[in-house]
């Protein structure tokens, strides 16, 4: 319920703020790994940051579920970062091999059995440039 409210607030505010008091950027900070970001951008990959909705009571189970779901062609496995506390997932992907829309669709499909889903927060295509995701 809390996660649904958070998601609704995020959508209502155009992705600018979270109802729990954490800024979107603060959620991103929870999984921001500069080494991953630098390496991905050097390789022409993009970074995507997601809010996770409907977390399971056990954080480790949520983490495992997200790791499994994020394993797909075009997504670099070693780049996946998860913050169960702040319900954030981030990953690097090759835009030549997979689109952001396809990633979201696959994540949601794989997570639906666990009643989890993702909401894209920001995408990074260039250094120091976090942009909103238009859906």
């Amino acid at each position, binding site marked *: 319920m809390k996660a649904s409210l958070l998601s609704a607030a995020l959508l209502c*505010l155009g992705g*600018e*703020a*979270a109802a729990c*008091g*954490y*800024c*979107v*950027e*603060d959620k*991103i*900070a*929870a999984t*921001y*790994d*500069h*080494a991953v*970001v630098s390496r991905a951008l050097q390789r022409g990959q993009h970074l995507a940051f997601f809010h996770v909705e409907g977390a399971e009571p056990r954080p480790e189970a949520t983490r495992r579920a997200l790791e499994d779901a994020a394993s797909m062609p075009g997504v670099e496995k070693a780049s996946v970062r998860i913050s169960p506390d*702040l319900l954030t997932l981030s990953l690097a992907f090759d835009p030549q091999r997979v689109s952001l829309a396809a990633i979201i669709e696959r994540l949601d499909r794989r997570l639906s059995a666990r009643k989890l889903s993702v909401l894209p927060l920001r995408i*990074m295509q*260039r*250094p*120091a*440039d*976090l942009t909103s995701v238009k859906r």
Partner: protein
Amino acid sequence: MKKLLSLAVLAALAACEPSAPPDPYDVSKMDFTSKAAKVTAEGHKGAFAEGAALSMGAELKRLDAAPVKTVRLDTTHKVIEIAPGVKFSAWTFGDQVPGPTVRARVGDKIRFVMTNRSDEPAPVPQLVAAPMMHSMDFHAAMVSPQDKYRSIAPGQTIEFEFTANYPGIFMYHCGTPMILEHIASGMYGAVIVEPRGGYPTKADREYVVVQSEFYVKPSPGKQKVDGGPLYVLDGERLRAAQPTHTVFNGRHNGMVVNPLAAKPGERVRMFVLNVGPSKTSSFHVVGTIFDRVWMEGNPDNQMRGMQTVLLGSSNSAIVEYLIPEEGSYIMVDHHFANASQGAIGLVSTSAKPPAQDLEHHNMQASATPTDPDAVAGKQAFESKCLACHSVGGGRKLGPDVAGVTKRRDPAWLARWLKEPEKMLQTDPAAKAMLKEYNNLPMPNQSLSEAEIKQYLKYFQWIDAQPPGALKTQASGH
């Protein structure tokens, strides 16, 4: 008729009565408007802290009269010394801990800019934390946190402004999760907002004292700094609120070694802020009584004749007291477990006044070059090289750069700055130096030709100074 006359006289008298003073807290007169914050990918390469409203050390500069205070406080990662031999991998505002103090007056506008420079190369990268997102939370402001206090990535710059509506001493800190870790790593400072009409008393000395805790342990990777262990944040102690050091102005017993100055008969105004992050402060000055205490730094919250002031985390007070006679008056956290961890300092009638106009990097004021290339070289040197090299202070991890242009010719120095690793393969002098300095190679800073020219100009300027003109500089990155 008589009645009418009486009423007219009464009305005239009422009109002559002085009107009530304006309410300083009339919210209809406060300014709650501010433009949306602007986040860009524009970097910044100049000083880490800029603005006439900033004071870098304990001694406070007078209020700058400008109604708009433009302030830059960039975030950096650097190694600081919190106690003798305890070199801690810190995160900072303005490249110092605590960050510079901002001074303003009610009604002033603060125009703030911050670049996240945590990704700037450090001479020994493994000693500082990896680049990360940071943010700024001003307790002195009334603004939307989601707009103004958002976290920015390394390389990004945020700009926003706010109006100071209430007088007080307000904390500022990084608000990026996990906030506890960002504050405990050094990301805090004070904003002083004077009442619109100033303070009701006249003080002879004004000092700011920021109390904070550190929670440190030797780095698990056993990294060394200047031959000693590097200390990093101890997460377990942090979460258990068990500090290893409790300090004033970022330094264990710091103001015992360098007391604050005052003379007998003088009134000292001390702006005290406890930033925590997790402990209270029972601030007391041995040998005197607080004539006035203005809780939260607001003269409307006045108490008289107090011995101690109790400050929770992010609470503050102005304490004013007289120096009755010659002596050293001891500032302590009267919760003596905290004092024993370093929260102690002196206000002494025998102390020398601190140096004026302190520069950034916690360094003493020193002579400054005027040539633009030399100025740029000095700035670059101070941000990248001070951890390993001193200027006239003797050898550290690497050689003292004073005299380097007399020891080496310009072509050799230019090659050394450009490709130290190649020089170490081929050049006998470089090989000998590596051996002399414990096989610690100088890292390649990827300097451009223009930057190398700036460094050389700065080194030439250093060697042109008269003996003793340059003071030893403390370590930076």
